[in-house]
């Protein structure tokens, strides 16, 4: 407890300084995400926005370094799929830029255009240890949702570090519904769209419409069709996953990942053989739809055992609750996934899927996204005590903490609570 108090004082002192600091972070346990494994009494040194050393105590302490102690230290967590920053209040249309059901465009919709670094869910997500986000648009007008992006959670202008990082395409029941009413129609749309892109020159020479896509949509989908950009498919039923794998085999240059994949365990060996990574919500264990009849809380574990790269996310209320992926991962462990694999599902796996270099690990030379925790990061009772992004100490404040602090004491005998902040 005393250590924690010292810790929070140190963090308080550091909070206002938003410069790349020199910091030495001590952890009773340091999960590195590398071959160094989990270090007991580990030390991570941060200099100029990069990690310069990862080892065990005692460590070299650079002059002027801030020293921080915590129970656990991990790389900044990476949310592999969410709408964080696209929506301030999901149910308020004016404050939600996730999807555009009435848009004339689809694949060309660039989610980055709707991103607001001031959105309050960003700080809320950062406070739970997430430093990087892969954000996807919602597919609302066609099965092509548009272009997803990668961002950090500093909440600063310029926090998107890769626009158009992936093309998002929805299959299964949603894709069927968006294509006119059946999976058959969805696949006709998908194949037709690929043809539009492949015959772009001829098809759009004299008009704007292809068989499926407008000129702008076809142009936007081009990198994905050429295999130069990741295509992230959303699908759950085993037959849908097999159809995606058939498609990938017909088009071997495609760079494919799948989000959802509730029945992925049934086709895990094939996914592994084709090196298709999956992004799963390990809470899913109900036949919530006819596409999820074989959902099981062991899905993530079984996929990983088969050799599939697995990222873990929380898919419900994904504009505000991406942060719950740590709880989901902890539950995956309770259902048989090794702790190390579950941690990778929040760090190295998403980094690999989205090509985020030097992120997701604590290693010399890596970008200094570092989180210090008051306990095991996958325990529901744990929380970060300090978060660094590119070596910069992040404010541990959100609109939620401000509301909490205002209402902790309800005494307004002197003044209304509205004066308190």
């Amino acid at each position, binding site marked *: 407890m005393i250590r924690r108090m010292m810790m929070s004082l140190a963090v308080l002192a550091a909070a206002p300084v938003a410069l790349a600091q020199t910091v030495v972070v001590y952890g009773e346990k340091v999960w590195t995400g590398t071959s160094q494994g989990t270090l007991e009494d580990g030390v991570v040194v941060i200099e100029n926005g990069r990690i310069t050393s990862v080892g065990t105590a005692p460590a070299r302490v650079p002059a002027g370094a801030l020293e921080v102690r915590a129970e656990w230290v991990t790389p900044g967590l990476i949310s592999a799929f969410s709408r964080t920053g696209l929506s301030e209040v999901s149910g308020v249309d004016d404050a939600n830029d996730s999807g555009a059901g009435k848009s004339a465009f689809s694949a060309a919709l660039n989610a980055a255009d709707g991103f607001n670094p001031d959105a309050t869910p960003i700080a809320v997500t950062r406070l739970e240890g997430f430093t990087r986000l892969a954000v996807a648009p919602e597919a609302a007008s066609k099965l092509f949702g548009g272009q997803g992006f990668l961002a950090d959670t500093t909440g600063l202008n310029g926090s998107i570090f890769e626009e158009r990082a992936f093309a998002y395409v929805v299959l299964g029941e949603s894709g069927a519904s968006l294509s006119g009413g059946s999976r058959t129609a969805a696949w006709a749309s998908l194949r037709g769209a690929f043809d539009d892109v492949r015959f772009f020159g001829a098809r759009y020479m004299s008009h704007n419409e292809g068989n499926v896509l407008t000129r702008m949509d076809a142009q936007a989908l081009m990198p994905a069709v050429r295999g130069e950009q990741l295509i992230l498919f959303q699908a759950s039923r085993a037959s849908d996953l097999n159809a995606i794998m058939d498609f990938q085999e017909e088009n071997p240059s495609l760079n494919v990942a799948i989000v959802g994949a509730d029945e992925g365990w049934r086709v895990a060996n094939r996914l592994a053989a084709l090196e298709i990574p999956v992004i799963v919500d390990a809470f899913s264990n*109900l036949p919530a739809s006819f596409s999820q009849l074989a959902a099981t809380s062991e899905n993530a574990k079984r996929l990983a055992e088969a050799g599939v790269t697995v990222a873990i996310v929380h898919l419900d209320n994904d504009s505000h609750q991406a942060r719950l992926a740590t*709880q989901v991962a902890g539950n995956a462990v309770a259902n048989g996934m090794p702790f190390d694999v579950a941690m990778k599902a929040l760090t190295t796996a998403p980094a690999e899927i989205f090509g985020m270099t030097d992120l997701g690990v604590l290693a010399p030379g890596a970008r200094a996204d570092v989180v210090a925790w008051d306990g095991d990061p996958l325990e529901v009772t744990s929380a970060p005590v300090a978060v660094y992004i590119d070596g910069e100490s992040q404010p541990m404040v959100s609109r939620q903490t401000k509301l909490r602090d205002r209402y902790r004491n309800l005494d307004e005998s002197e003044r209304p609570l509205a004066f308190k902040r």
Partner: protein
Amino acid sequence: MHFRILCLAAIAGLFVASCDRPGKGGDEASTPSIANPFPSTYKPYPSQTLLITNATVIDGKGGLVEKGAVLIEDGKIKAVGTDLKAPDGAATIDAAGKWVTPGIIDNHSHLGAYPSPGVDSHGDGNEISGPVTAEVWVEHSVWPQDPGFTRALAGGITSLQILPGSANLFGGRGVTLKNVPARSVQAMKFPGAPYTLKMACGENPKRVYGYGNGSTPGGAPFSRMGNVAGYRDAWIKAADYKRKLDAGESPTRDLELETLAGALSGDILVHMHCYRADEMAQIMDISKEFGYKVTAFHHAVESYKIADKLAEYGACSSMWADWWGFKMEAYDGIPENIPLVHNAGACAIVHSDSEVGIQRLNQEAAKAWADGKRIGIDVPIEVAWQWLSLNPAKSLGVDDKTGSLEPGKMADVVIWSGNPFSSYTKAEKVYVDGALMFDRNDPAIQPVMDFELGQPGEGDRK
């Protein structure tokens, strides 16, 4: 807490059961009557005398026993202590390293009414034909084959309240169930549990009627003030109906007014969906205007702003650990809501409103507990467990029968693989009235609903 009124002779003459008005519920007779037309047919399943030893026992009343023992006999808790002897012929479980708690009670579920799979044909949770549908009873929508019941059981849920949805000002009657698989909802109904009434504040009624669906009969409410006028209008009619009953008159039966009059008399417990603090404050006034009591506010994401007033009034808050931001009235949700309500001396309950969340309410409580601790609200785990069992039992009027491990109460008991406030802990054995209904290590003691038979994944680990 209840405002039961004396039964008048004239009413006794009207109905078969001497003291019961239509819909009062709560009697255990298994023959349908006007007073209780859909009686519970639930009977505890066979159980054996069982002594669980060496466990960390949370007794549900706020106590914790290290190396504790729990004795179950005839489906009831017989004793809790440290030095209990196994009666002759009793089964024993050495639960070293494990924890034993009262079964979790979720007082806000839509299982069965919005079952899995969530197809339109299954959407039976909201009778949106009008803003006041106090005449509907959610038990008539509950599909007992919802696979969600089995998942909840695996999460240690032994009783639950099914509520109608929140589209309406008055959504209808709720029902309290024992979480046992059954062929009919009657065979799940918690014997002797009072009926409840679902009401709703705020955005949902005005959205469903005013904006989303203004063409439905009435078209009102369009606004929060329309909501309040709607409640008051209905209570005025109900008060008049109740006055006639109390005076010994026999007005034409009216299903809507029977339920509302039951709420006014305190026989039917009012459970009210309400997010915002200012709206809860107004609802408490309305309840005083008409002389009823709100038993629990549900969702109550802003209870922390008026925790003192809720404590003074005596309403429970049924809350999520950390849901927020999905709509305007959920915008001010904070993870410390539950501990702040508890700390003010008000009744705190962890609820799910979700077929996913219901599977791990212990973890939801754990999050709230830990977030409270970080701001200096240091509640022992065994006290916090009351958010999961005893407080929801109180809110359903069944705390004399379940919700804690006290001698004579139903043996609704969970054996956990470890500390239930950990992500890594699973419910290993779940007993309902002493009968083993779920065993994580024995596929033969894991129910599989009809819907899942013959489907991919049948009988898999869920």
